[in-house]
């Protein structure tokens, strides 16, 4: 459903992504792992349209979206929970969730999606009046994912959802990712927590300095000794 062809991205003179190609099929969880600065976030931002590639093309659901504005991509069904969560600190939890459905035309279904989010994250329902900025790290992460779901995306981009979370939350987040996927949303997941990310993914890519060096199913990569050494740590 999503396909990147020969994408390159530059920050000024610095090339962050070079000639990268991969695709995500409908219904999959695809994980992207790699060291710091490998270009994972850059890839995500390129897909969501915050960055524009200097070369290559992106197609989504059969349409070329390479030059499409970011806010239109949201309407088309790409939704991102950004790195660092991007909660609107001065808005309440409810308003933050509302922002998720900003671009939606099918207003009537918004209620259903809200229910679904509250089902996934009961904590959010308890706190609908709290300002986003005063939520703790884990709660903000829930809010960010919940908000992304509010646009009823076809493709959900999650950039390091486990960052800064306590262990039991991390497990919860990964469970939820699977759950969301089971409900029919395609997920592209960027993670440092490579073990979890690979274990949950249908397919995965390893990114090194802006290009993909390994690809395969999650299980394959988990077993790959090179990947193991570089990203999974010994023991």
């Amino acid at each position, binding site marked *: 459903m999503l396909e990147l062809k020969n994408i390159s991205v530059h920050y000024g003179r610095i090339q962050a992504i070079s000639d990268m190609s991969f695709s995500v099929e409908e219904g999959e969880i695809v994980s992207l792992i790699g060291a710091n600065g490998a270009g994972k976030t850059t890839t995500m931002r390129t897909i969501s349209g*915050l960055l524009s590639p200097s070369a290559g093309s992106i197609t989504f659901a059969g349409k070329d979206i390479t030059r499409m504005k970011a*806010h239109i991509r949201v309407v088309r069904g790409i*939704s*991102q929970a*950004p790195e660092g969560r991007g909660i*609107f600190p001065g808005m309440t939890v409810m308003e933050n969730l509302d*922002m998720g459905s900003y671009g939606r035309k099918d207003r009537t279904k918004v209620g259903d999606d809200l229910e679904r989010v509250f089902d996934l994250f009961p904590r959010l329902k308890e706190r609908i009046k709290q300002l986003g900025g005063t939520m703790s790290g884990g709660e903000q992460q829930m809010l960010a994912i919940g908000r992304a779901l509010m646009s009823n995306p076809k493709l959900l981009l999650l950039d390091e959802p486990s960052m800064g979370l306590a262990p039991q939350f991390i497990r919860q987040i990964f469970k939820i990712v699977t759950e969301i996927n089971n409900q029919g949303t395609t997920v592209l997941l960027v993670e440092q927590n490579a073990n979890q990310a690979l274990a949950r993914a249908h397919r995965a890519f390893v990114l090194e300095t802006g290009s993909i060096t390994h690809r395969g199913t999650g299980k394959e990569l988990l077993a790959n000794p090179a990947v193991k050494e570089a990203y999974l740590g010994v023991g």
Partner: protein
Amino acid sequence: MISEVIPALLHSVPMDDTWITFDVNSFAQNFWSSTFDGLTFGAIYALVALGYTLVYGVLNLINFAHSEVFIVGCYGVFFTLSALNFGPSAPRLAFWAIVGNLVLALVVAIIASALMAVIVERVAYKPLRQRKAPRLAFLITAIGVSFAIQYTIYWWRGPSPEAALTMFRPLPIFDVFGTIVDSQQVVIVIAAIILMIATDQFIRRSRTGRGIRAVAQDPDTATLMGVNKEKIIVTTFIIGGILAGAAALFYVMKIPSGVQYNGGFILGVKAFAAAVLGGIGNVRGALLGGLLIGLIGNYGQVLLGSSQWTDVVAFVVLVLVLIVRPEGILGSSLGKSKA
């Protein structure tokens, strides 16, 4: 030598009452007239202040060209009135004719100001945004555009203010302790407050308003929510322009001879001060700040003996308030205002 210099310096600030008084009598005598005049001007400041506050809230930038957005509105009013054949003297017109003319002038002023605001955004801000320029660069282009607009008007209309055109002679409405409050003052203050409330509600309740607040808090994430950032920014400038246009009408009503190429500058500075006093980025703060700046200045000048004190008093109070409340009276941030 120093021993001579110090007394000399001290002496240079003579404390006789020729230049500063503390005239409580005059203050009491002129209290109500200063209050009503202060409120009227305050309302105008507040409307202009909103333009600063909105743009500041969304872009975190002081829009130094906003005073020109305002003055272009004033020209809009002026040209409308000349086209309607108004002269320096106020004709006797029926009530509805006055209202009709007012609305017409208002519409033209709003269109002129809003257009100007969009032009300012396009020329001074958008190119820099695209180039990801540092913040101070925006300040300078805004100043540049402001100069350019002023002197374009200058080149076109000359250095002198435009002829004073008046639509109606204010009617006394009621009398407060011997001070007459006229229709003009009442219209200005009420209209300004209505506009403020409308803006406030718009920002809080409407979808666009939510978009504005989102862009104010985190532009990138807002984009990820499907908010068209560029459109929101332009919209914000337009809203600022609309309010400036309204302010322009009221200003011309109050000071018909104030339509001049550089007529917006000082007013702009005071409106900006008002925005900061109330808490920049805060819609309600702009209203509060505007009214306060208007009142304080007027009280100050009657108390201290001459109109020269108006701005001094206003700024001193501003500084004092900020020392106590560093984020202005109501605190900053467009985003913060709870719905």
